[in-house]
């Protein structure tokens, strides 16, 4: 039996992301997902900042709670994993997740989602999205032990975190001067 209970989670530094989408496509490259399936999504937030979100491997995953087939497990390292053998493609998890993490795959007719590249992590590699981030705006840590006073639990534009307690933390953006033409 393994010893440590971890909660691996993403840390997103708003200041360092400029929306290059490398993380999103690196995820597809690694997992060869169908073109309609977006395990990770880069979106534009207010104030012309960007947000890159995948499954947040929540502390209280809604997907886990609503799945009638009990197809989700939360691994000891905190990764929420869907067992596609058990998934019937009913779509309840897709509706329940506040972050749009589970995606319906029209090819397999099942839900699939980010598994934080655990096969890579098991080999000591970072998730593909983290590896691809050239400015290290996206990193990952064990949130059970990692703590930095400058981090915050949420940022404007991120869905309500109360329900699921997502394993993601943020560094907010710094202030900037902008001089537009009159």
């Amino acid at each position, binding site marked *: 039996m393994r010893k440590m209970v971890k909660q691996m989670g993403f840390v997103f530094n708003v200041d360092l992301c400029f929306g290059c989408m*490398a993380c999103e496509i690196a995820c597809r*490259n690694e997992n*060869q997902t169908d073109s309609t399936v977006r395990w990770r999504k880069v979106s534009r937030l207010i104030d012309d900042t960007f947000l890159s979100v995948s499954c947040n491997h929540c502390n209280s995953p809604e997907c886990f709670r609503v799945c009638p087939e009990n197809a989700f497990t939360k691994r000891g390292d905190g990764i929420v994993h869907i067992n596609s053998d058990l998934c019937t493609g009913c779509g309840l998890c897709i509706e329940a997740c506040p972050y749009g993490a589970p995606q319906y795959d029209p090819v397999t007719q099942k839900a699939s989602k980010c598994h934080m590249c655990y096969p890579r992590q098991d080999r000591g590699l970072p998730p593909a999205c983290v590896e691809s*981030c050239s400015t290290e705006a996206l990193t990952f840590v064990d949130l059970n032990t990692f703590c930095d006073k400058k981090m915050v639990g949420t940022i404007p534009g991120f869905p309500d975190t109360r329900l699921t307690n997502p394993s993601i933390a943020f560094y907010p953006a710094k202030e900037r001067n902008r*001089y537009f*033409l009159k």
Partner: protein
Amino acid sequence: MEIYRHACPRNCFSTCGMLSYIEDGKLMKVSGDAKHGYNQGRLCAKGYAYTQYVYNPYRLKHPIKQTPRGSGNWERISWEEAYDTIADKILELNKRYGSNLASGYNKFSGNIGLLHYAVEGMFNSIGPHTKPIGNPCLITGEQAMRKSFGQMNSMMPEKMAKMNAIVIWGANPAVTNVHQMKFILQARQKGAKLIVIDPVFTRTAATADIFIQINPGTDGWLALGAAKLLIQSESYDQEFVRNQTVNWEEFHQYVNEQVDLHEVCRQTGIALDVICELVSIYSMAEPCATWIGFGIQRNVNGGKNISAINTLAVLGCHSGQENRCVYYSHSGIDDFPVNLLNHEEPEHPIVLHSREIDINNFAENASKLVDPPLKLLWIALRNPLSQDQDFQAWESLMNELELIVTVDLFMTKSAEMSDIVLPAASHFEEMDLNVSYWHHWLSINEKAIPPYYEAKSDLQIARELMKKLNDRSPGFSNFPSEREPIDWIRMELTPSVKKLYSVECIDDLLEGPRLRTEEVSNSSSSSFKFRLFSQGNKGTSTHFINRRKTDVEESYPFQLLTPQSLLKIHSQYETMPWLNQAAEQEVVELSEYAAEKNGIMEGDKVELFNQNGKIAAIARISRFLPQKVILVKQAGKNPINRLIVHRPQENKEKSSMNFYDSSVNIRKWREKNG
């Protein structure tokens, strides 16, 4: 799983080191090459989509032939037949006109690997022919840089991370050079200020500490205004001015007498206190990088703008040689013999030279050719019917051509108008050698997988086609068809290249990319004296050409800017589903002013028009766009370049394409309009 080493060959600053993961001869995934010091194990979004590029359902599999041209009536043919048809035509034209001048090509930067100069090598090998010259992209700026600094080699871009301030003029690395952003943001994390000057509120501008929006094409005004303030406050580097410049007196007088700060503010649209903020950055005693984007020189004042920015950059910053860093581009290729490009033509008894046409006006000039006219056109590594301007000229040129051959991986706009289309190999299917026009790394590109169906590399096509010609007519071409790709690469690694990149043989490059040794500032470069901005030839008092208010421009009041989009390079990558999530419609961005003036609402279907034509698009209203600027991304199904016409510059020097000098108007779409 086997792993091979590659270099991304796209026309992009980064020329990334890349690894491919191969299982049973199939490309499973790609990753960045961690041994490459510039991209450091990462790729961009486009790079990560390469599996979809290689195994794309739209990729061309076989040689095909279309009769008649443009009909869409395609027929698969064998390589043999393709070669025969082309060889027949070349030989017949040669017989008809007594030389190969009726045969020509239009090729540019679809793949910037050194072995892709096989196209030039192939045409050189048949003696005098018709070839494009010039560079639509960055040559105006290159000339301005050489004039200022006497050379083209900038500091390693990695060193931007150590700067205390970075001023970016009209570049948008967040979209066009994503790997540079980490060095910029590293500097910023350590407290450096990032300043972006751009007419458009770009993604790079959004990350900047200070964004200064400027009227398009007026960067020179801003630089001279700032220089004037710098001189007035005596915060410029006086020792440098005394010892290292050639025309200080002239410049000083010019700035004193001719640069009026009110006029600077009026032209640029920037308030004086904002210019002062810029001056305070440039007068800091710490290292400061200036980066001049290619966009700066896409207008008629391009060269002058760059010269003015260079001047500001070296005046401030207490420069010295070390801190004087103006980034524009790095001509890494100058170190190499580029044997294919410079392949020596066999002599022709009568015709002494090949015929040269300015690539920026290729179609118009080519259709004017006589004795002989251009009859065969070989299009490779380029999609002129999407990328060029002036499509009308292309249409009339095509009517004159007897054979059009296009080599490409996809059915491009240009391929659609060709007689024969040959399937090209991707860089995973061929060997190559790559340097960058930005960073200082040299990489080898290995062949990792067999060619997709019948695809071939440009070099392979050259070898086979030239052999075919020589079989028919011995001695017609002097192309060394027996030479393998690896031989060509070996020939590029001359003793001086090996020394410069510390390699002994090709195997060293298979171990990982190599960095060019920084030149210790040798005597020749330190003896060079900087040339400050000068207003040009005596007598011509025009310093900057203003956008003239002619009748034509009254009716087309908006300036058209056409930047690159994030997930494409021109029309490349258009067919990759990962990169094109939503069924994308052409989008035109317009200011709130323009929208209000023309009664256009967000999401309306609009048409953009001028004397050259019109395109339809969906309106997106931007509160950040200058009033009189309209912005459309490049390429697409209905390429925006339809509306752009190149105005040849008055001097006869080579110049880049003035893509950003076009005027347009916009109105709501009408179903029935004439």
